[in-house]
């Protein structure tokens, strides 16, 4: 007979490597959800994902209007890629996305980071990417616990019932 014992998730590590509004928010919703479930949660922001924890940028993230096949006009018609390339279109679409997200009572990025930290989640920045983008610790959100290497991040995945998610 198959063993039906359940082994609920105890620890989750997430890697966010992309910096669009929806990529960062997806990571934050999943991370905050894990914290809310009492799961030990650690987040690692790397490459363009760093925008999600960079003070100057984190509340102004954009949604790509070019090269995004799921992009639609209000009403559901396809969104022509050439239209997305016009100046100001991406900014306008992004502002509209942020407004709709706000209406759903989903917090802004800075507040999300606060909530995750308040619940005991830990937020890290990737050393390689921080060096590459010439950032300093003070450029990053106060909730960022440390700037670490990917090796140090893997070391944190040291228990049973642990998962790593790449978003």
């Amino acid at each position, binding site marked *: 007979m198959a063993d039906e014992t359940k082994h609920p998730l105890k620890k989750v590590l997430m890697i966010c490597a992309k910096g669009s509004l929806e990529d960062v928010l997806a990571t934050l*919703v999943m991370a*905050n*959800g894990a914290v*809310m*479930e*009492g799961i030990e949660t650690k987040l690692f922001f790397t490459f363009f994902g760093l925008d999600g924890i960079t003070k100057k940028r984190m509340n102004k993230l954009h949604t790509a209007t070019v090269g995004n096949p799921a992009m639609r006009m209000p009403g559901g018609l396809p969104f022509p890629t050439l239209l997305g390339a016009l100046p100001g279109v991406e900014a306008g679409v992004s502002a509209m996305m942020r407004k709709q997200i706000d209406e759903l*009572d*989903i*917090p802004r990025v800075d*507040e999300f980071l*606060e*909530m995750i930290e*308040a*619940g*005991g989640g830990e937020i890290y920045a990737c050393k390689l990417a921080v060096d590459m983008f010439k950032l300093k610790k003070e450029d990053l959100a106060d909730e960022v616990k440390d700037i670490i290497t990917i090796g140090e991040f893997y070391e944190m995945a040291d228990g049973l019932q642990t998962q790593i998610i790449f978003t």
Partner: protein
Amino acid sequence: MAQKEYAGKMIDIDDNGYFVNSEQWSREVAQAMAKENGEELTDKHFEVLEFIREKVKSGESLTIRSIGKSGITDIKGFYKMFPGAPLKKATLYAGVSKPSSCV
């Protein structure tokens, strides 16, 4: 439907242990539920539970964020008061249904 006895009262519960009828709730029942987990509820805990009951009754969405803005406690405090999965635990003790929000 499953029933469970808390503080001498039979409570109708669902598969996850949540109240089916929120009217069966009382402070004594909540205290007995907490005791089962080795916890004791203070007046502050009850303030949060009453806040949750009000919110749910009025049909508003209940999020961890709304509790953080309740003025009773901040989010950090909420995690401390109901360790583990705070929103799940607090709604359980508050005698309302399981929370359905993602944030």
